[in-house]
């Protein structure tokens, strides 16, 4: 079974928009992957005129919020412009290894990469704090620029949601049989690539092994 990877369109956003945008994207993906019995819940974004759907699973909500918090912390500590958050779905397989009698192995069958580009509000005299939103010079041009940027972000977010729906529709064959008819149904993992510099390479290496990259010997 191959691993389908979806690189979502990059979103340019400010720090205070991260939470809502991530919630929207993650929940939309989960809604399409939580194939157990759900009661859908419509949620309106506050910053944008977009409604997305949640599964209504409280555990999932909690985990998503935790991951978003982690992501925001990381963004604050490493104010790089581009950041990524990865949502992976996997199957747990027992693998008989030669060295270890039994080993639980994760077979990733789908990975979503949410790409975020943090931008700072353009100010005339600004400090380097990337998450401060105070507009020192609230001229008309700054306000216009903000509204243009906001509209562009809304359009991009809508595109990302369409992209998710399209991906989910087109690729259905790789989805494994539903193991659990309640809630999320598939085990998943949300990671922030590069969260630890030393483990970054190992993380990628492990994932490549597990997904059985064709160039790697399994």
């Amino acid at each position, binding site marked *: 079974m191959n691993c389908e990877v979806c690189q979502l369109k990059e979103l340019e956003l400010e720090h205070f928009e991260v939470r809502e945008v991530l919630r929207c994207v993650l929940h939309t993906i989960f809604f399409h992957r939580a*194939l157990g*019995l*759900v009661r859908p819940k419509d949620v*309106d974004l506050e910053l944008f*005129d977009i*409604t997305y759907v949640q599964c209504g699973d409280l555990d999932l909500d909690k985990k998503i919020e935790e991951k978003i918090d982690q992501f925001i912390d990381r963004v604050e500590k490493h104010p790089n412009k581009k950041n990524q958050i990865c949502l992976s779905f996997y199957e747990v397989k027992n693998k008989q290894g030669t060295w270890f009698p039994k080993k639980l192995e994760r077979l990733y069958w789908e990975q979503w990469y949410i790409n975020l580009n943090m931008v700072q509000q353009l100010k005339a005299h600004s400090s380097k704090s990337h998450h401060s939103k105070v507009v020192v010079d609230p001229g008309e041009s700054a306000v216009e620029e903000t509204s243009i940027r906001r509209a562009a972000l809304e359009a991009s977010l809508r595109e990302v949601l369409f992209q998710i729906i399209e991906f989910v529709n087109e690729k*259905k064959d790789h989805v494994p049989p539903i193991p659990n008819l309640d809630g999320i149904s598939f085990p998943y993992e949300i990671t922030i690539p590069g969260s630890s510099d030393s483990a970054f390479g190992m993380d990628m290496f492990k994932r490549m092994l597990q997904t059985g990259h064709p160039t790697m010997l399994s």
Partner: protein
Amino acid sequence: MDLQGNVHGEYGRFEQIVSQFLSKSLHIILDSRVPSVHQNGHNLLSGTSVKKSDKWFSLKLGDRPASLDNLNLWHRNLMEPMIIDIVLVQEVPDSSSVNYPTTTLGLGKYVETVIERWVIQYEYIRTVFPHVVESSSSYKKTYKKSIILLRSLYAMMRLLPAYRPFRKLCSSTQASDFDINYKVSSFSAPFSREEEELMKPYNFASVDAPQGRLSISVTYRENLSCFNLDTSIAYPPQIITDYVGSPATDPFRAFPSSEKGFRATSFSLRGGQSPSSTPFQRPHSWTSGLHRMSMQPHGGSPPVHRTSTIPYESSSPPTDIYGHRIQNYRSSTHHKTNSFDEHQLSPPFSPSPSPSPPTYLSGGNPVKAHRHSETAPMSIPHPMMGRSPRYLSPNLSDPNRHSLPPLSPKSTKLDPSSQDSTSGIRLPRRSESLRGGEFHSGMSNLFSGQKVLRDSKDDSGRFSGLLSSSDSPRIGFSRSSSKLSFQDDFDDLDFSGPFIVDDVDTSDSPVRFQNLDGKRSSEFTSQAFSTRKSQDAAVGALVHMLRTAPPLRQDSSCYSSHSSKTELEGEVGAASSGFFLPRKASDALEELRGYKDMKDLLLSKSGTQVVRKEEV
């Protein structure tokens, strides 16, 4: 034979999947586009256990409205496509001079435009060598993929442009100039060229099924701006009816007169969250409600109030493929479109022209109610000189004060004094009005007055505590703290004090007071402005005053000390008269005189009794 039986069994299962797939798709589409279907379904949703039929495709949507079930019965041939047209119905002015009274707004005619066309079908693909045995795993795969397909259908319904007008219709109870209808058929007239140019197609990836595939496609209008629908649903106005201290919730304030004219208007929550959602997860209901009301777009629906209703056509007969007509179920009692302009705070003591209990959407009620809600719904125990504690409660700020509940027979004697928020209670009223006016400058007068009081009444240790709390710069009255402090104190108080006029028959004074009441009831319907902090202080001061009032049986020496106190209060009141209209001070003084008279009467009666006893 077994094999064939198996095949038939499997095919029967597959037919069931297809049939349920069509039903579920129909339900999803209509639930996300037609307000009546959505509301009926959600009314049934709450509090009911999940039906087996609702578990299909792992998507709980609630009970299907009867109209959908009828449509399902009609659509028996699984091979035929199911075409669902989502129709936008707008009332537009007619060029002819003839009025069309049957139209809702009487403007003219209805114009129907198909804004979305959904085609759901099972496409049968005849294969040369059909599979003899369809394994159950293929049905499972089909079922799994159908689940995913319906999930994406559900999500897509919220991303397409037609979702916004639907949300507007759902959230607004005011009359709109448009409505959304639906039409289900197995064939449809193709779009004209002009229409096609405005429409955009989207095809969901089909799901492979035995001998065919399940497919969903849509053709939708990308741009709905030409219809001039104000579909901004950001922060729709929300009227909260069960706010703290509302007539609906506070048993002390179940006023029949207010209920007559009052009509709770509840807008559906934004995002359901519900509330709640909400969602909500929302800030305090009042602030958000206020905020939302102030943000209500005025240009949304035309300021025409629908009073007639167009008959509702149900779609129960299978051949009747139209849904309901315009659902203009909007009550006319609460769509005053200019109401939100009036939520400027009226001056504290400005007279109101009308004594009628204001509805929630007129006369700036939301703000008043906002103010009201900020005051603690204290309940002061009853036997306080017959003055109902209700009037000392935060109801003082309520414009419905005139329509306070009829007092018990015990307390009717002092009705008018209580009803007047500014004059009923002597010192506390003044202190309240002081605070209502200039805050800082009034405070010094207030403090001096209160300090004198406190000094003169040393036995009221409890109340001095109350007063001292009121002396803090913020008067010390947050919502909860004041409530708690007062309630604690009042629980301990023994109100079998002297001024329980419940048992005393004073036939003259009640009549007089009721006349006064009649006069004053019309004067303060729009008073929105008593400050909550001063009310608490007022209550405390009142309690103190009553507590320290001399008993009825005492001689006139105590009475004179009390009257000197009241004179002092009069001075304080006079000093503060500059902060509000002179009329209020005079009213207060008048009230004071009334009380004095009553007290004189009582004392005289008790005095005669004492004299008689002494004689005996």
